[in-house]
């Protein structure tokens, strides 16, 4: 068993008993990256010096026996490279920000440090979080640890692949249209997207501000609960963060699903879903039934409209958010510009990759004079209909359950030439972001060719507790989370 397969309570006992040090943990993380990440490419940069210095500091503090240990004390973490970290390069996997050195921490980076976790590395992603395969990284694509011919998913592909490879105790990703859950499903790990507003977005480089949300990627549900506990909460620096109480998520993990009412939308379990994925999800439902839950078929009638609405809204917001990258205050600057407009154009054109430009173009068009009502406003109205669909289901059910993705991971290069086909892969995840709901992906089986399958559990707004409870009860009863790619040691 690898060090990072141990339960958090075991790690903390070992640290208290001096059988293990935080430095040992940080070194194990760095060694795993050095030894194995050449194949996977989940990491963009390692802060070896900073991590070891922080680890030593935490070891000294425990040796002095002073303060209480933070919730995530000593745990090596990897952060998606769109979460700004003071003094540690943050690039969003974009050439535009290749040398960007943040002057302060984001709220979540700070909270992770305040909880005594050690940030070891920044992780690969689709450039500016736009993509579902990590093929849009401006530096190099990440590969799926289960089979390196396949994508790890995206845009938090580095966060998920690094967990499957057990480089860290936990990682953080961000989810705008499925970017935590889809790679978690493809890599056989747990990925949680909290309710919109549950976690501060201050210091998360914005893609689509009405949809973005930070969340944990972990090897099991218990770890996801710990990390969420540490990062959740209202933040005066993010006016969209919700001023609501943060419950004790750990106490929700009772293992009990008796009387739970599950709704299964017929649109996301039938046609268009790969039979292997469908069978794995139906088996999961049977499992939950045997544990005392009940399920019925329900309907999300506007599902087929969610993907086009999502791409119009997210690209519109992105075109506005990415206007800040102009080559003046940070990032690359083209050196051949003779006036300011040319400087903007040349810098942006040199710094951004193809998919980022495509989305900026789409968003600019959808927001431009004469097209606003036809595209942007229309998509906002469809968003309302999708929210209403969820509200009517949640009047009678506790959770909604369906696959995280229509199929398992696809081959590298398979979808790169057809943006619409690539976008349709998001059908099971984008409706959840449009409604702002919490959702988790947990492993629920494997395909015939050995790739992981993800089960998605969606809850009512701010009811992460129920989502975690159901996911944990299911996970512990089936044990798929214990499987790792063969080459991953231990």
């Amino acid at each position: 068993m690898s060090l990072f397969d141990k339960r958090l309570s075991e790690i903390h006992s070992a640290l208290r008993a001096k059988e293990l040090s935080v430095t040992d943990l940080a070194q194990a993380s760095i060694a795993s990256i050095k030894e194995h990440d050449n194949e996977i490419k989940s990491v963009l940069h390692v802060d070896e010096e900073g991590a070891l210095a922080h680890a030593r500091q935490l070891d000294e503090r425990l040796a002095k026996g002073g303060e209480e240990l933070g919730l995530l004390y000593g745990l090596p973490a990897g952060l998606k490279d769109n979460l700004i970290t003071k003094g540690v390069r943050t690039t969003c996997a974009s050439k535009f920000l290749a040398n960007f050195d943040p002057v302060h921490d984001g709220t979540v980076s700070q909270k992770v440090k305040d909880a005594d976790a050690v940030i070891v590395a920044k992780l690969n992603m689709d450039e500016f979080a736009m993509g579902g395969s990590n093929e849009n990284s401006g530096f190099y694509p990440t590969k799926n640890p289960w089979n390196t011919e396949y994508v790890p998913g995206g845009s938090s592909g580095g966060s998920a692949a690094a967990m499957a490879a057990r480089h860290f105790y936990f990682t953080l990703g961000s989810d705008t249209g499925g970017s935590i859950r889809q790679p978690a499903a493809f890599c056989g790990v747990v990925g949680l997207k909290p309710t919109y507003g549950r976690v501060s977005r201050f210091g998360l480089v914005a893609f689509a501000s009405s949809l973005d949300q930070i969340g944990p990627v972990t090897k099991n549900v218990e770890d996801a609960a710990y990390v969420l506990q540490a990062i959740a909460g209202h933040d005066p620096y993010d006016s969209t963060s919700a001023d609501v109480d943060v419950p004790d998520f750990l106490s929700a993990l009772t293992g009990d699903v008796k009387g739970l009412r599950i709704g299964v939308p017929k649109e996301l379990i039938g046609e268009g879903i790969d039979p292997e994925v469908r069978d794995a999800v139906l088996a999961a439902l049977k499992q939950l039934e045997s544990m005392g839950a009940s399920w019925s078929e329900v309907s999300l009638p506007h599902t087929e409209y969610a993907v086009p609405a999502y791409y119009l809204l997210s690209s519109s917001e992105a075109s506005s958010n990415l206007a800040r990258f102009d080559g003046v205050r940070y990032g690359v600057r083209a050196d051949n510009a003779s006036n300011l407009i040319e400087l903007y154009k040349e810098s942006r054109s040199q710094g951004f990759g193809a998919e980022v430009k495509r989305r900026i173009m789409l968003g600019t068009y959808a927001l431009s004079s004469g097209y606003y009502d036809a595209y942007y406003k229309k998509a906002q109205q469809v968003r309302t209909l999708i929210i209403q669909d969820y509200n009517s289901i949640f009047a009678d059910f506790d959770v909604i359950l369906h696959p995280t993705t229509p199929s398992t991971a696809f081959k590298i290069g398979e979808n790169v030439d057809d943006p619409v086909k690539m976008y349709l892969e998001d059908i099971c995840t984008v409706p959840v972001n449009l409604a702002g709901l919490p959702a988790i992906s947990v492993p629920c089986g494997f395909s015939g060719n050995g790739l992981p399958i993800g089960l998605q559990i969606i809850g009512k707004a701010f009811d992460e507790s129920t989502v975690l409870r159901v996911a944990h009860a299911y996970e512990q009863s089936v044990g798929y989370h214990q499987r790792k790619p063969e080459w991953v040691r231990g």
Partner: protein
Amino acid sequence: MSAITRKEVEHVANLARLQLTEEEAERYTKDLNAILEFAAKLNELDTSSVAPTSHATDVKNVMREDVNRPSLPREEVLKNAPDHEEGQFKVPAVFE
């Protein structure tokens, strides 16, 4: 809805402050047409009486006290600037 032309793509690129290569302009004309055709699906729905949603949560007009608080030191803020002079960001001439 009518298809987007190459000329419109160039107009949008200018609005977005992007300088497209010949190849990119071709490519994005094709891609945007495919995406917009796909987006036209939304027109199947009558939304004339549906209110638009801009945010999934109903937080509105969050205010804070108007009090001074420390800002970042100037040299820190300029640290990532491609060019600066006398404590200010420097850019090429705005006017000819």
